[in-house]
């Protein structure tokens, strides 16, 4: 629906149409000042729908299943269980996940890769329809990956703004209602002020374009786990990053009631000598959120970033031991899929068992969102760390 964005250019919310001319200012001043228009406060054509969608994703006891691995990354997953990286294998794997009965009880949204958004089950049912029936909102990864940031300290920036408006409109037409854009910040590399600014500004531009085209933007500046730094350093960097992000989101007139966040938890670096308990991680992470996240944001869906399945669940549970002014939940990929892959092994006879293991992880995280999770009876597999140094998606 590219026409939708063209129509909006003529609407009164446009910055340059219908504003007063220079001569209409009252009071004389020797100084030339640029005229400014007061907007109705940030509302656009999709605002109501965005707010509803964000609320629906941020519903109690539910979180996001992230299955938006690019083809190359999905290939690594398939390869780990001895499968070739073909379209039909990718389709088979995603079908296993997305047709899990009862998934909608614990999962409120699923992030897809572009290929998957247009795929169907082997019976010909569109994946987006499977999701909708379970009341799971379909989402779409819209960034075009990380590339080296010139002039930085070996850091990256995230591409994807070119043509983003029309791509978003097309995704909306296909049934997507939220988007995701992942940029990264590296503590061992600084991070440099340039890298942080670029990450924040890119996210803000993406968010504004997404909302303009009916997609709730998930805002994801991942502060990578790599490094040997203590938790205090992560807290410092996280506070800096989120301060920049919110400032630029505001400057881009993003409607905060219609976004979701996907932060990394505040933990020590992966190579730090001491591990932190879930309570310590919860305390530092909540401190950071309270200092940086305005209550208008409906939901915070944490990434797992290399934590083991059990760790990711325990940490989330620790964060939900008291009321929070936003929904605090999960948006997990590896931390939901690891056991599933290992159970499936690519064999049809393991199909049901694999789906069951997805429900086990989803339910555990659902309980963690409600602050009611207990680690008894967790499998050995779920304890395995999934940190990969220098991990690239």
């Amino acid at each position, binding site marked *: 629906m590219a026409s939708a964005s063209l129509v909006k250019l003529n609407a009164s919310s446009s910055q340059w149409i219908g504003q007063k001319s220079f001569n*209409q200012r009252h009071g004389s001043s020797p100084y030339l000042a640029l005229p400014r228009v*007061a907007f109705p406060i940030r509302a656009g054509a999709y605002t109501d729908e965005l707010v509803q969608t964000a609320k629906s994703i941020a519903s109690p006891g539910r979180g996001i299943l992230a299955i938006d691995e690019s083809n190359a990354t999905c290939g690594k997953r398939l390869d780990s269980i001895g499968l070739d990286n073909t379209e039909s294998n990718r389709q088979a794997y995603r079908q296993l996940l997305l047709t899990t009965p009862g998934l909608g009880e614990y999962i409120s949204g699923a992030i897809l890769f572009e290929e998957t958004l247009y795929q169907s089950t082997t019976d010909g049912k569109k994946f987006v329809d499977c999701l909708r029936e379970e009341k799971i909102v379909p989402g779409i990864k819209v960034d075009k990956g990380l590339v080296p940031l010139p002039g930085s300290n070996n850091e990256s920036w995230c591409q994807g703004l070119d043509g983003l408006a029309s791509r978003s409109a097309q995704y909306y037409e296909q049934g997507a209602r939220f988007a995701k854009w992942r940029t990264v910040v590296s503590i061992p590399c600084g991070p440099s002020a340039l890298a942080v600014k670029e990450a924040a500004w890119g996210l803000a531009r993406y968010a504004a374009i997404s909302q303009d085209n009916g997609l709730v933007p998930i805002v994801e500046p991942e502060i990578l786990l790599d490094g040997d730094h203590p938790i205090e350093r992560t807290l410092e960097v996280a506070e*800096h990053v989120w301060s920049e992000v919110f400032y630029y989101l505001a400057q881009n007139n993003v409607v*905060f009631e219609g976004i979701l966040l996907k932060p990394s938890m505040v933990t020590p670096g992966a190579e730090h000598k001491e591990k932190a308990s879930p309570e310590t991680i919860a305390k530092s992470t909540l401190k950071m959120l309270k200092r940086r996240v305005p209550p208008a944001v409906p939901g915070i869906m944490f990434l797992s970033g290399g934590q083991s399945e059990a760790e990711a669940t325990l940490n989330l549970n620790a964060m939900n031991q008291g009321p929070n002014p936003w929904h605090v939940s999960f948006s997990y990929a590896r931390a939901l899929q690891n056991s599933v892959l290992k159970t499936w092994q690519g064999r049809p006879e393991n199909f049901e068992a694999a789906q069951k293991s997805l429900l086990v992880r989803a339910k555990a995280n659902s309980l963690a969102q409600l602050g009611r999770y207990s680690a008894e009876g967790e499998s050995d597999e779920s304890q395995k760390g999934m940190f990969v140094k220098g991990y690239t998606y």
Partner: protein
Amino acid sequence: MSCYKGKYHDELIANAAYIGTPGKGILAADESTGTIGKRLSSINVENVESNRRALRELLFCTPGAFECLSGVILFEETLYQKTAAGKPFVEVLKEGGVLPGIKVDKGTVELAGTNGETTTQGLDGLAQRCQQYYAAGARFAKWRAVLNIGPTEPSQLAISENANGLARYAIICQENGLVPIVEPEILVDGSHSIDQCADVTERVLAACYKALNDHHVLLEGTLLKPNMVTPGSDAKKVAPEVVAEYTIRALQRTMPPAVPAVVFLSGGQSEEEATLNLNAMNKFKGKKPWSLSFSFGRALQQSTLKAWAGKEENVKKAQAAFLTRCKANSEATLGTYKGDAAQGEGVSESLHVKDYKY
């Protein structure tokens, strides 16, 4: 360092939280000598030190008032004054469980290249002054930045400059034991709509918190003193519920939950209007992870001044008027005000003065 962690860290957090105690708020009695002169002249009282002292004693010694107050902002002269019986005001406040605060800014000056916009002075020697004020008993400070809404205002320069000044002031206060009240007042003057006020307020507050974060201010040890979001003084009025909705939405979009409380300025609203708006905010159903209270000057003192008229024999009557407003606003912080304090003289009188200068 993510933010201030020095020796006053715990004390700042405790004091900021205390000021936001439900049922309590701040009396802003920090009118400069010039400004208090205007008040006194409006009731035909001479602007001399003894009269200024007498007025403040009248307020601070009102029986029962302190139950409704968690803090009083003082002007420098008042910080060192005593009751007629010789008791330092600071002690009177402390014994009543009220934190003494101190105005530390040195007024506004114009910004070159703008259409009459201003910045606030006072950073020079601020650290030393804060130390002295702390030693004298002050535990919080206040600095008022001023912005206005016009066809080209507030300009980006005015917003950046005032936000930066507030952030510098805030961290210097914290380093010296004073909880900074951050006050970016957007004047009500003008014919703009409530939507425009909301847009500007959201933009200004976003800039303020960005600056505070950049300057490593400990948010848990600060307070915000913003304007309520209302139509301009020349525009049609709206119901308190509308003011509440717009104001809270603006705060939801900008104010991190780490900040314990908002203490609204009254900015020219009548006593009753200010109370009704505050009450509506505390009744409003929505996310409000900070307490919503008051820091009123004119809106607490107007009918008191009229009742006093500078005469000794009117003191009790004046104190009764003051207590009435204190109680009304205390109830408003709990959302339980019933509108029964609307009887006094001057209570519904608009206190708006165009292009008001403190």
